[in-house]
């Protein structure tokens, strides 16, 4: 077939039923089979690495360009570094990243407080809009949360009381 540099003449019947029109990837992909030549294209100019960039171990290098938005840092960064030792095929990659994301939320709050900013979580969650457009729903959610919280507190109080009685 096109772009095939290897000689398959020793394989009887090689390619006799090949039909280039039978390509379910078209028109998404204009097949050139260039990737059969491997990672051999002329790469764009490489972006200088000014911050730590973690890269998948399913590729040999950092891509020519990359985002520098939020380099790994703190405890979440340590977990992310460990995660990138595993392949994208491994839960050992993705689950620690999710854990790191949750730890990063706490780090974000600490960072806010350190810089003198008390995060307004009510505003950040957009409750102003919820209050404006879905007041009934918001009140219902608040009531359910209050009842559940009361139930949990009451349960533990009762448990504590029972313990004291013995």
């Amino acid at each position, binding site marked *: 077939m096109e772009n095939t540099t290897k000689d398959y003449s020793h394989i009887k019947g090689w390619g006799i039923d090949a039909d280039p029109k039978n390509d*379910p990837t078209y*028109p*998404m*992909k*204009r097949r*050139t089979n*260039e*990737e059969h*030549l491997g990672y051999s*294209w002329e*790469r*764009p*100019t490489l*972006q*200088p690495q*000014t911050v730590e*960039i*973690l*890269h*998948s171990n*399913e*590729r040999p290098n*950092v*891509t*020519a*360009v*990359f*985002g*520098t*938005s*939020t380099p*790994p840092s703190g405890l*979440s960064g340590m977990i*992310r570094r460990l995660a*990138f030792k595993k392949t*994208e095929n491994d*839960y050992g990659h993705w689950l620690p*990243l*999710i854990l*790191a*994301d*949750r730890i*990063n*939320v706490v*780090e*974000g*709050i600490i960072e806010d407080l350190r810089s003198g900013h008390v*995060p*307004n*979580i009510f*505003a*950040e*969650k*957009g*409750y*102003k*809009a*919820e209050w404006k*457009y*879905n007041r009934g729903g918001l009140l219902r959610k608040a009531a359910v949360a209050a009842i559940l919280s009361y139930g949990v507190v009451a349960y533990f109080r009762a448990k504590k009381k029972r313990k004291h009685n013995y």
Partner: protein
Amino acid sequence: MLAMNYRGPLRVRASQKPMPKIEHPQDAIVRVTRSCICGSDLHLYNGSVPDTRVGMTFGHEFTGIVEEVGSEVTKIKVGDHVLVPFNIACGQCAFCKQELYGNCHESNPQATAVGGIFGYSHTAGGYNGGQAEYARVPYANVGPTIIPEGMDPDDAVLLTDVVPTGYQAAEMGGIQKGDTVVVFGAGPVGIMAAKCSWLFGAGRVIIIDQVDYRLEFARNYAQCEAYNFNEIGDPVLFLKKETDWMGADVCIDAVGAEAAGNAMQTITGRKLLLQAGSATAVHWAINSVKKGGIISIVGVYGPTDNLIPIGNVLNKGLTIRANQASVKRLLPRLIEHVQNGVLNPKGLITHRIPLEEVSDAYRIFSEKLDNCIKPILISPSAGL
């Protein structure tokens, strides 16, 4: 500059961040004129995409005026008003050369399964996005496209994702004249997929969702049938009956990870994160398409696993086609459709919200408040 700032699941705010700068000779800096919140931003907002770091700015649908260009940029210049495809693509790798601009191999170091995407976590390259006053645009010779004279910026901003994704969803369906197409999800992309299905000659287009105002909008905007899955019993059985017991020719999943409608999928996929989101839409698609039919997936899922009836894919002889839209490949045709009045993207926009109120904007879109279909954010320096 003012920018959206992610603080954790369901928590975002607008805050001051440093101005972006040229970091590569093919970079450009744009002053953002329009940016949208996309349905797929909600996966980030809900905390379901791994490696979404606190402090990041989301936003992969935006237009802007070029303020600065790197030394290797030749295709655009300072002052140009450009629309910026959500894919970050080098144009040089084997995949870009085959027009797989959503699968570039030189834009995302963190994962090989997806190319770089603006403002879409480190799993998609770690780039800040366009929900800001300014944004860094890498590979400015490849992606950014000058907005044709006379085109409304509201139309242009929807050409960065919603229109090409909806169009490619229909295109990947391999729709033949007279085919019945079922679209799961009446969000902006689903509505656009329904609309575009007609362009490929569909004979019947059905959209399935559970939000009545969106179904009503879809009926009017995409001239299709629209049904609430809470009112039709089992949607698979309903669709079988509607197609003389054959099943649809083509089913499109335009929902992705946030799907409702199946308690087991919702609990394992969205609440417990045991799956990469709830796969209800693709599950229904597989079971309601006809034997030998085609499933087209543009709904976004996380990078781990999902529970779907793969045995039925085999037994029914189905073809599954899926990809991130290749915006650059599709733009010439779609610009033509907008200019000729075949498509009216800005008709999807229901909310224009100042960037300063980004927290409320996310809440409104996420909770489907105030009959929201598509919100756009206007930054204080948009200028138009």
